[in-house]
């Protein structure tokens, strides 16, 4: 598969944004500058970007508690995200949502979600909207290996299958659900096999390889968009950080983590691949690095300068016609 230079630069930029944005968050939380629970996506960038690069604002994404990567890949504004995490009035959700509820309806981002599995039926319903309104849009649900043990996964995939909805279910199998290894709670080797319960098409991709995700997600999206029905795409990946910022990581071996980080980093692999193939030069990439660093620094500065929401905001936005 031959990708345009601009596409490759875009892919690299989005992956770097996620990486740098989250490394920054890690720093800020540790420094006590940010509150709440933060679940970092570092290491899984190729999944969100490989999929979202092929979606438009008219396509929907329902995300998870680990949602920053999906938001950034879907094109959500970094400044609005950072301000939200700082709980400022200028945040995407006016500071009311926080990390687990960042959303941007204009970008088709239906929100991160604090309830494991809850984004799956939301994306399914959005796919129904696309189908009935004939928008040509597709709807993507990202969720983890752990979420595949939720009833919402089972019921939603079955519904999408019998209704032949334009939906893509992306399971990010990162080997753990909190502190529990996936193989301890999922008795099958590949979660993709669960698609058979719904006569649904499925694919397995190397979630640490942007190109593999891009190719398989592309086919799946095409399949769904063309009305041929939903697809379950399993991406084998790994989270480089803990379950949440502050996680002691006692439950997994340093060696295992190091092996993934040193040998499978999706961004490093992307760089060597495009440089070996002479698709992009070091300069191109370093320029993007600088631009991304500046973006993030600007986002932090703007967020820290922004006002907190007025306390009157506590009781607004509960109802449309404020009851």
């Amino acid at each position, binding site marked *: 598969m031959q990708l345009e230079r601009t596409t490759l630069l875009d892919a690299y930029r989005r992956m770097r944004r996620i990486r740098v944005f989250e490394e920054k968050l890690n720093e800020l939380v540790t420094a006590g500058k940010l509150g709440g629970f933060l679940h970092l996506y570092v290491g899984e960038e190729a999944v969100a970007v490989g999929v979202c690069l092929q979606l438009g604002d008219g396509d929907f994404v329902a995300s998870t508690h680990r949602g920053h990567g999906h938001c950034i890949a879907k094109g959500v504004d970094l400044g609005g995200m950072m301000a939200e995490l700082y709980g400022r009035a200028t945040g995407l959700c006016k500071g009311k949502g926080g990390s687990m509820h960042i959303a941007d309806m204009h970008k088709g981002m239906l929100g991160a979600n604090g309830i494991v599995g809850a984004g799956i039926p939301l994306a399914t319903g959005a796919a129904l909207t696309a189908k009935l309104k004939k928008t040509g849009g597709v709807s993507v649900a990202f969720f983890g290996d752990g979420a595949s043990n939720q009833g919402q996964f089972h019921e939603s995939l079955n*519904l999408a299958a019998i209704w032949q909805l334009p939906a893509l279910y992306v399971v990010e199998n990162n080997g753990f659900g909190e502190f529990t290894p996936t193989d301890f709670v999922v008795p099958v080797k590949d979660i993709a096999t669960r698609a058979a319960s719904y006569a649904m098409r499925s694919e397995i991709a190397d979630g640490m390889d942007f190109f593999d995700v891009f190719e398989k997600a592309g086919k799946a999206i095409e399949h769904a968009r063309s009305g041929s029905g939903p697809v379950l795409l399993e991406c084998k990946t790994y989270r480089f950080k803990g379950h949440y910022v502050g996680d002691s990581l006692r439950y997994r071996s340093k060696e295992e983590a190091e092996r993934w980080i040193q040998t499978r980093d999706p961004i490093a692999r992307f760089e060597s691949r495009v440089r070996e193939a002479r698709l992009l030069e070091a300069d191109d990439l370093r320029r993007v690095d600088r631009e991304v660093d500046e973006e993030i620094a600007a986002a932090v500065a703007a967020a820290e300068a922004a006002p907190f929401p007025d306390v009157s905001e506590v009781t607004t936005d509960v*109802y*449309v016609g404020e009851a």
Partner: protein
Amino acid sequence: MARAERRISTGQAINEALHIAMQSDPDVILLGEDVAGGGRREGEDVDEMGGVLGTTRGLVKAFGPERVRDTPISEIALVGAAVGAALTGLRPVAELMFIDFIGVCLDPLLNQAAKLRYMFGGKARVPLTVRTLTGAGMQAAAQHSQSLYWMTAGIPGLKTVIPSGPRDAKGLLLAAIRDDDPVIFCEPKGILNLVEDVPEGDYEVPIGKASVAREGTDVSLVGMGATVRLALAAADALAKQGVSAEVLDLRSLAPLDEEAILATLAKTGSLVVIDESTPRCGIASDVAALCVDRGFDSLNAPVKRVTAPHAPVPFSKRLEDAYLPSVPRVLEAVRELGIG
């Protein structure tokens, strides 16, 4: 405005409201278990069931299986998908066959529909309606007879309404479907076959407004859904004793029409609230709490709550009858206030 009226049942009124809502807005869709009934496929011409009680009959014929969708027995997916559809531009009316089944689909209501707008800083709306059967009296036993509207009424972000007859059922359902917030529309089993004059055509009953079902001066009887008829019957009996009872029909459980409750209390000075639900954490407690807070200066007597006991709904007719609020129990409560 005066309209032609004719006598139809609550069930027929609901069916009529659904026809009007779907006619007037192409974004309105229906989904639920057997809402068409017979797993009707494009082309087939099944004489469909229209739900377990036939309330939705005729809709799939009128609007087709794309807009009237039978679902698998998968409540959390069907309600969750309805939330996702509402969030993205449709105006779904989901049927939760019995409110008792909320146990398998609470999350999309509690943590999604109710909170998305707030969590997103006001940048989303969820125009969802959930129709659901409530109440006892059919010997359907503990898992098919509950009046769990207190659970949805207690959740910020949701609205919950309950009609006491056909006329309000039609207008409240049309208002619920067109409301841009998620609304739980309760269908009390006890009133589905109740027949009264219902206006033809399109009209709405505003959500959040109670109605005075009978004027009175000595005591206020506050009811909702099936207990409004009970309150009216009690008022008749009291009238014979020379006691003038005012009957207030809440109609909307969330938001609660506090002004209407305080107004009738101010008028009579004593109040009895009648709810077929269980006593703890319910609508009856909220009404009583309002009276002893903002209504304190009007209070001449205790506020009595006539509810079901703190127990599941029993099967045996003998027990179910004793379980539910009754006219004698309402009269007893009024007597305890030293009236009549």
